[in-house]
């Protein structure tokens, strides 16, 4: 079947079997390797992408289900040269250990900050709750998201 998606701002067209999941389309056909496969059952959060701005597990979605929607992965948020403030804050906080869960966390944190530029620690915990991380114990990721929020407010970028 033919699936049209806007991936990181670029309209794309894919021809895929109807059972193709969004995660596989993104990783194998769209080149978005940031979308990580950790459980394929929607439990770990590593494959999270933004669908029209909402964080969703791409392993639980068929590509056809999200036809016509805007998909955002971290490739669309920044690069090592021009990192998103969340990326910088996470690295500076020491929140990136193995890094496997980080792209998904960044997207859920972005969705949170888009809605609520001034979150509490509890808000951040709840936003990151669907993301399993075995390395950090979550302390530094939570600190980092709060720090990024503060920096983005200062930079007036909270709503971007």
């Amino acid at each position, binding site marked *: 079947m033919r699936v049209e998606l806007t991936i990181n701002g670029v309209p794309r067209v894919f021809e895929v079997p109807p059972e193709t999941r969004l995660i596989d389309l993104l990783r194998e056909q769209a080149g978005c*390797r940031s979308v990580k*496969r950790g459980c394929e059952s929607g439990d770990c959060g590593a494959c999270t992408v933004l669908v029209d701005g909402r964080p969703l597990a791409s392993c639980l979605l068929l590509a056809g289900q999200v036809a016509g929607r805007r998909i955002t992965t971290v490739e669309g948020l920044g690069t090592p040269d021009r*990192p998103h403030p969340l990326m910088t804050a996470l690295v500076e906080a020491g929140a990136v250990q193995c890094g496997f869960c980080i792209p998904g966390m960044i997207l859920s944190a972005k969705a949170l900050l888009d809605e609520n530029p001034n979150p509490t620690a509890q808000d951040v915990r709840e936003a990151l709750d669907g993301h399993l991380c075995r390395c950090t*114990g979550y302390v530094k990721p939570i600190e980092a998201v709060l720090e990024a929020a503060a920096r983005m407010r200062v930079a007036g970028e909270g709503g971007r």
Partner: protein
Amino acid sequence: MSERREFRVVGHSVPKIDGLGMAAGRAAYTDDIELPGMLHAKFLWSPHAHARIVRIDASKARALPGVACVLTHQDVPRNIHTTAGQGHPEPSPYDTVMLDAKVRYVGDRVAAVAAETRAIAEQAVRLIEVEYEVLPAVFDPAEARKPGAPVIHDEPDCRAAIPVPYEPQRNLAAHVDLRIGDPEGAFAAAPVQVEVTCETHYGQHAPIEPHVTICWLDADNRLVIRTSTQVPFHVRRIVAQSCGIPLRRIRVIKPRIGGGFGAKQEVLEDLVAMLALRTGRPVKHEYTRSEEFVSSRTRHPARGRVRLGLARDGSLQAIDLEMLLNTGAYGSHALTVACNCGSKTLPLYPCPNVGFRADSAYTNLPVAGAYRGYGATQAAFPMEVALDIAAEKLGLDPVELRRKIHIREGQGSAVFRALGEGKSGVEQRIGSCKLDECLTRGAEAIGWKEKRGRDRNTPKRFKRGVGMCTLMQGSSIPEIDMGAASLKLNDDGSFNLLVGATDLGTGSDTVLAQIAAETLDVPLDHVIVYSSDTDLTPFDVGAYASSTTYLSGEAVRKAAAIVREQIFAVAAGMLGLPPGDAAKLRAADGAVHAPDGRRVTYAEVALHALYGADQHQIGTFASHITHASPPPFAAHFAEVEVDTETGLCRVVKYVAAVDCGTAIHPRLAEGQTEGAVVNGIGYALTEELLFDQHGRCRNPNFGHYKILTARDLPELVTILVPSYEPTGPYGAKSVSEININGPLPAISNAIYDAVGVRLLRSPFTPERILRAMREPAGK
């Protein structure tokens, strides 16, 4: 050995050198490449806990369009080995072959398929016909040790590779014992005696990236293995052994790794390698989450009995520790985890009379292996609960009892010499120990004095309590582990640092770059790190035994010190100084400075050496082994709240005060601590692999194997207490494993403080807590 001084790069929390690439989602992990014509592999797993394969017919699978290769035990070489990724000769028994005619647990390998797509591979696996003769199975390690129990390894070729006790006909995978002084005599004379038995359960590492391997044959027909491993050099050696091909034909590449925690210290790549060898095409194999839970590796469940004999003033007169480990169907790490039960707990409390015995028994359950903590987790539980009981009997504060008996700087322990890993240990004296300060600062941070014993005798429904423990680990395996580094100077004054050391997400590439930058006096971004590629980087045993910073870090420091001398020698010539005057030079900011104020930059030195006079490559190799394994120390404090109606225990606050020597990168050291503590709390409260009566795992998924999430997090306080380890690079020792050992005993002791019952069987589920409260004498 490095001098204690003010550091420029070491001790600073620089941005992790690979952090932004990961955060920006750059392709980096094993599965992030796609090779032309790549096949997908799936394995057929045993549905039986113990069975012989009477007949296996893969003809239908082979006939399925899109199937490139099917391998059964009839199609592969039988080369007995161990999957434990350890140094040569491995202390784990040789009891594994690529595919066998017998299966020993539900989830054991039966066959493998490589096909054009994953779906075809899955379909082909279902088409393999297998007739099993089901054998009686045994799931309890004590039952497995009884006469008449099913013999799990009755194959004639299984054996120990080193001279250690190994009796497969009695399901004994490993045994270790130790006796110092006269424990029984001392127990008879000791006025205060404590005995406690604790039991731990099956847990799994649950790295968020499962095991992934891609194998292909390169243009020269060499086998390239790109794999999520902690031990690339052991993978090369053991895959060569299992496949029966020359080691020189194999190149192992370790890309970024999505966590390992010991699970990836296991060599499981051989079957994927064989599929690539047979098909000549690239083959990828990725464990599903349920396969990761069941068929990768787990933590050895253990029964541990501790006896303490004490004088009335609390001084220790005798310790006896007896451990029975369940190694599952194969003896991976069976001996060394058993050894570490003693060697990573007993030296913490010097005592003239010590007894220690540990057995690892085979059962028909999933295979145990290396898991962060590595025996110390299992043994610290009964040891630290016993000390809590002892303190109560003696009328002493548990903090003060430990303060009185813990090992101190300058002290040794007969256990260090007696207990190594598969051989005798190495005598050592403690060069750094700030455990006293850990106790003081940790107690203060948790509010020990105010919170202790507050709720137990109240009628409250929600009762809070505090408990604590002290811990030690090691830093590398002395006189066994070796790490090496190579360093070369580039035209622009930058350096390539090549290390065998294996960054599996820990940040060791960054830590090693810091050590090089500190030694060379250059900015961190002048050190370009490439790690763990068996064709390109020097050898390293890999990321295990809390070794990388301490062992590989010193190899890097040595290499950098040598290169610095080489740079000075060239600079002396450029500055027209006699060779003897090189000692008067000093390095700063990537340049060499003469006493008269003249300077040449490293870039100028490099250009001179590469293109000017006496042309040569400035660079070197350096290797390091250690003659000590300096323990990091920690004091952990837990505050819990127990719902006396439901039995639910919640950790309210947790304090880890840690002496890891110089923290080369404080934030990463804190991160190691926080990650280990949270994993430990999960293991203590919620994480448990459950099995039915047939040995089938009932909960191999994140929905039913509950690891903690951000919302479950207690208030977590990490205190790095500085010390300086004289044998480590810039004073460093290890930090990665120790902190996973605290939650079991600290939480058990806190529950006792809250509600007056001892939880001696993990995890501390509401059911167990409630049962213990209703039957105070029971367990």
